């Protein structure tokens, strides 16, 4: 067993530098690497390119790095609910690359799986397709999309073991397993860290081979963006 455990988020993010490209898991505020984001905020590196489906809210998630003007470019599918984001984007401080969500996911997986490019129907005929190769398959036009590259991927899982194996919970899985595959260095934070052998090998979502560092996160807020309930 190859042990991937590091002590905390600070050790997890060791080696990050200005102007790097990061992937950050999560959908909305669900399944985001809260501890890694805090640590990145603390050390204050700048000029980051962040690949993340969303950009957090003003005071949580990636919004924290936006507040500190640490992000140069966001690559996302949807970036609503964030005033500071809007301000920086409209002022030209922040570069934004909007990508269809399924293409975003597949480009992460492709990066991890050694597939440099693939064809998808998503975005054909729209501005997303501008400058991209178009090819017809089965009578339907598709565009060529390329794998991402990322220096680090920061992901959040529910449980993990010393070998770096990860299990996600509910819809907090989302982009995390794909980004875990894609990072040159993948840093996983988990709510529960267990010895190797405690997770059943059948139930693992992300095999430890994709994870270079794992640590037990602390103080998870797990904020809910849209609290919707029904009457009893």
């Amino acid at each position: 067993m190859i042990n991937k455990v590091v002590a905390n988020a600070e050790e997890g993010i060791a080696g990050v530098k200005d102007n790097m490209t990061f992937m950050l898991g999560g959908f909305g505020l669900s399944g985001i690497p809260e501890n890694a984001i805090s640590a990145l905020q603390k050390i204050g590196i700048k000029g980051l390119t962040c690949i993340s489906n969303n950009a957090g809210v003003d005071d949580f998630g990636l919004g924290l790095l936006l507040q500190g003007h640490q992000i140069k470019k966001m690559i996302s599918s949807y970036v609503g609910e964030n005033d500071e984001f809007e301000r920086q984007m409209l002022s030209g401080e922040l570069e934004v690359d909007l990508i269809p969500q399924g293409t975003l996911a597949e480009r992460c997986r492709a990066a991890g799986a050694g597939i440099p490019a693939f064809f998808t129907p998503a975005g054909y005929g729209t501005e997303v397709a501008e400058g991209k190769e178009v090819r017809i398959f089965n009578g339907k036009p598709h565009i060529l999309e390329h794998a991402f590259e990322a220096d680090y991927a920061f992901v959040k899982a529910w449980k993990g073991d010393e070998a770096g194996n990860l299990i996600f919970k509910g819809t907090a899985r989302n982009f995390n397993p794909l980004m875990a595959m894609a990072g040159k260095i993948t840093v996983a934070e988990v709510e529960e860290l267990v010895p190797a052998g405690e997770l059943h090998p059948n139930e693992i979502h992300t095999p430890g081979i994709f994870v270079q560092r794992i640590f037990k996160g602390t103080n998870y807020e797990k904020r809910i963006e849209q609290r919707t309930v029904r009457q009893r």
Partner: protein
Amino acid sequence: MALDKNGIAQRIAQEMQDGYYVNLGIGIPTLVANYIPQGISVEFQSENGILGMGPFPFEGEEDPDLINAGKQTITALPGAAFFDSAMSFGMIRGQHVHMTVLGAMEVAENGDIANWKIPGKMVKGMGGAMDLVASADNIIVAMMHTNRAGESKLLPECTLPLTGVGVVRKVVTDLAVMDVTPDGFKLLERAPGVSVEEIKNATAGRLIVEGDIPEMKL
């Protein structure tokens, strides 16, 4: 009388067939889940990673690890499954999801749809909409027939940046049900009490009216 949002949702629900997997967008489409016809089984997919999505949780039972694509807290029904975003959009692109209902700012008579970007306004992004419309054969748009300024949203061609090209199969509005055909919008049904003339006046794109147009049955 023109339908309200629930009426539109109710009419769209009639398009569902037994065994359908359905993806519902935000807004009116979400309401469709309230009107599943009796006697059929359908399952709802949310593109952030769940099949078998259930109703909102009871108060106090919200789980931050269990949300839908609108970031709302939800529940999972028996037989549900969770999965990652690549598998989720695999289901969508691979046409395993049979029907997608989503809103639109504009629909063109050739099936083009624009629903993600207004030049000059803050762009939030397309989310999964471009993947959804480019994939399933059964893309249904749920929207008001006209915008707040009273202008038709059913156009000869879209003026806004496109979400997809030639993808919309059917449009259900507060006034009418229309198929998108090679020749334009084919009027199928009128909202109760709404005349063909009213629909014609509210439709800027080519509207095909053949024979008697029945009223929707809700």
